[in-house]
């Protein structure tokens, strides 16, 4: 974006942030772990959109995926298992000027943090939220997750997991105030980048389920989905318009208007193919951090007056008698 077109007449900002500016520690994920591609995508987004590193915060929970902030050159908050969202909400209410991103695992978001997830959708605060869904607990070494496919053999379900998985998209689309829902797989880097970018520019809570490989524990769960024919590419002039290559690779396509929530819910419910793209978007939903926008500059005088008004309600004027007990 910036700094590319030398003939551009716009005065360029003094600082141009390169990819290295968004990199920090060397990632410690397993080789081939899908979290690496997600990291690359967000770093590229920051660079392309020239997000000031000091004005950008990545908040996460606990899990392999939640290590992501440590690898960013921005500010970060590696919080508690399940609690990334309320922490991010606190950051945003205090600092609407910051770009807030949230990274969570499927255990983080869809199990221990479920209550926060539901309510975060309802608050609809301005933030970009990535669910790294590897359908397994990675960090704690392969236990069933609420999104694990039924029958998956894990350390806690040696005979195969018992329950049907929760559907993160269906749940999200069922909550009032839902304003942006998208899905992609990390092995589709170009598409993932485009979707994260749309999510970033969406006003409100943008929720992206990113299907993420965990080659270490569940190398084959996504074998079927990785076949390009298993993807259903959602296209629309108000949604994503993909490149020629994308259109060639992903032949299953559907023109889907992201304002159509009924179709979005149907798509979210489909089991055998993976709809990728923007399922739902609505920019006209109230944003909690704007509804609750605080008056920024409170002078000492204003504070003193506010207190005095209250004190007056409960005031006792001096009275003679006794020896006084003020």
């Amino acid at each position: 974006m910036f700094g590319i077109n030398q003939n551009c007449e716009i005065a360029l900002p003094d600082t141009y942030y390169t990819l290295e500016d968004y990199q920090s520690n060397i990632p410690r994920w397993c080789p081939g772990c899908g979290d690496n591609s997600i990291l690359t995508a967000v770093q590229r987004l920051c660079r392309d959109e020239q997000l000031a590193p000091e004005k950008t915060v990545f908040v996460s929970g606990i899990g392999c995926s939640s290590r992501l902030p440590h690898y960013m050159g921005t500010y970060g908050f590696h919080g508690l298992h399940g609690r990334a969202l309320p922490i991010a909400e606190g950051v945003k209410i205090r600092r609407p000027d910051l770009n807030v991103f949230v990274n969570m695992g499927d255990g983080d978001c869809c199990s221990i943090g479920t209550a926060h997830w539901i309510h975060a959708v309802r608050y609809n605060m301005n933030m970009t939220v990535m669910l790294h869904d590897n359908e397994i607990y990675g960090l704690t070494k392969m236990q069933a997750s609420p999104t694990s496919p039924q029958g998956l053999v894990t350390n806690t379900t040696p005979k195969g997991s018992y329950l049907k998985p929760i559907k993160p998209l269906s749940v999200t689309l069922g909550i009032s105030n839902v304003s942006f829902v998208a899905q992609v797989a990390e092995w589709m880097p170009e598409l993932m980048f485009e979707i994260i970018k749309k999510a970033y520019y969406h006003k409100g809570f943008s929720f992206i389920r990113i299907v993420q490989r965990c080659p270490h524990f569940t190398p084959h769960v996504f074998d079927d989905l990785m076949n390009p024919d298993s993807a259903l590419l959602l296209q629309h002039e108000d949604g994503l318009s993909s490149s020629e290559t994308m259109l060639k690779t992903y032949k299953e396509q559907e023109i889907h208007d992201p304002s159509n929530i009924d179709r979005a819910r149907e798509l979210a419910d489909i089991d055998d193919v993976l709809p990728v793209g923007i399922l739902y978007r609505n920019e006209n939903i109230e944003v909690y951090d704007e509804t609750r926008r605080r008056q920024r500059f409170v002078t000492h005088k204003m504070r003193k007056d506010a207190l005095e008004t209250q004190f007056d309600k409960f005031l006792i004027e001096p009275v003679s008698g006794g020896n006084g007990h003020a």
Partner: protein
Amino acid sequence: MDKVDTLAKNAPDQTGEKKKVIIKEHIIEIVSDAGEGAQKAGQSFGGISAKAGNGIWTVEIIPAEIQPPPRSKAGGSGNRIRVGSFYITNAGDEADLVVAFNEQSLLGRFESGNLKPDAIVLLEDKWRNHADPDIKKMYRDAIDDLKKTPLRIYEVPMEKECLKIVQNAQRGKNMWALGMLCSVYSRDLESARNEIRLTFAKKGEKVIKPNIDLLESGFQWAEENLDFKFEIPSAGITKPQIVINGNTAIALGVVASGMDVCAMYPITPATSASHFLSEIFENVGGVVHQAEDEIAAAAFAVGASYAGKCAVTITSGPGLALKTEVLGLASMAEIPLVLVDVQRGGPSTGLPTKVEQGDLLMSLFHTHGDAPKIVMAPATIEDCFYAPVTARKIAETFRMPVYILSDANLATGQQPFAKPEFKEEWVAPPFDQSPVPDGKQPYDWDEETGLSTRIIPGQPGGMHTVTGLAHSRQSKVAYEPWTNQEGMENRSKKLAAFQKTLQTPKVNGDDKGDILIVGWGSTKGVIEEAVNIARDQGYSVSSLHIKYLQPMASGIKEIMQRFKKVITVEINYSDSYKDKIFDENNRRYANLALLLRARYLVDVDCWSNVYGQPIKPHSILDLIKERSE
């Protein structure tokens, strides 16, 4: 002045003028079914008395349920008002006079030992000829029984008189009763009218007028029909004061501190602080966020603190339990946070509306691992106002959570105190957004104090990721064994550095003697009152009140060593030394006693109970007498 309770049963003298008995103090209770407004009447009477220059302490009598069955002993709701010619610090002993809207509420207070044996009872008489024969019988039986006791019962036609003014006596009887009390205690009627105007200011003249009519009617009725009258002379007030309860004081303290994010989840008895804050906070740029649960509330507050000024979260015991993990994170990542715990009876759902001081040890130790935090406990309503101001400052300076342990006693207790004069230095300065100098680290722990300056998002050059994982000065995940040790040491040093700023608490009474009573939190007033009475009676006893529970000031051990016996008085559970099954090897001590024993190797005894009621001065007096033998 001391002619307390000397009035004869039939007070009017020959001239027909009522004799006005001058008294030093009285404890008045007013009880009704929930929703009949006894609480409002009691608060108003407290306000009128305070404005007349009396010392007061009011405390709510609260049933556990919102709509308890009517006319039930446990369902009585109302107010206790202690009024005196001196500064009053607690709810006192048994009541001298009670206004009851039905005989069951009265029995509830009588049977739980809250009334003096010869208390004056002003009782609604409409039940005497009630249409329902069961109710009629219940009432008559109760009165017959009570008349056998020394109680001085006056049956009062409250409903009948109210119906002369309003159609529904249930809404309004409270103001009629207030009028009656104003007559009994020789209050200025105009100041009572003003109190009503203030109470119903928002509702307008349509509501104010009938309430004033009721007030005047109650006043007039008492003037004509009651044969006694008291006066409690003013204690005098030299400077303007305000009279509020502890939760309102905390909310105002939050405003005064400059904190502007409060995240909470409703829980009794803490919620009213957030209610009050919600009303006024936005005027000063504040937000009260009602989160989906206490974990979220704490995490929200931590997120807000992390990104700027310190935030506050307000809760009670069960909520504190849920916030535990987040508080460990705040301690570990050195994020300032103010936590208010308005304690209630525990464990589990316990006694939701009743007083207890059972969260002290929890506050110190609930997080897993070593997570230093500062714990302070206000002792008065005035303390409740200043606590958030102080706590905010400490939290930001020492980068750690500060707990304020209030309780149900302070939450609903009202007491006047000098009107605070706002000071700019109370307010948090704007947070730093300047570039971070090269080489400065997120945890630049000072070698001596462990202190470091926070780097806040928005500061160029300061980018780092805070984490609850063990971390280095750069906030990098610790992989070497010594990094964790270093971090722990530095976080602990901060507590020690803070401790150096604390002053030794002052002993009430002689600084050596036979017995030292030690307390913390809301019991200061009652302990000191009892100790001072005992001292007047010649007992060698003093008291010590501890405001900072973690860390504790220096000098406490030396004070305790100068007494033969040290006993804590607390409102929480401990095993009684009188029960044979408990001995040195298994006896469980009250919260503060355990802490003092552990820290100071002093043989501290304890006296505590969990009746869910404020401690009465005479029970501490009895304790002093018993242990002095």
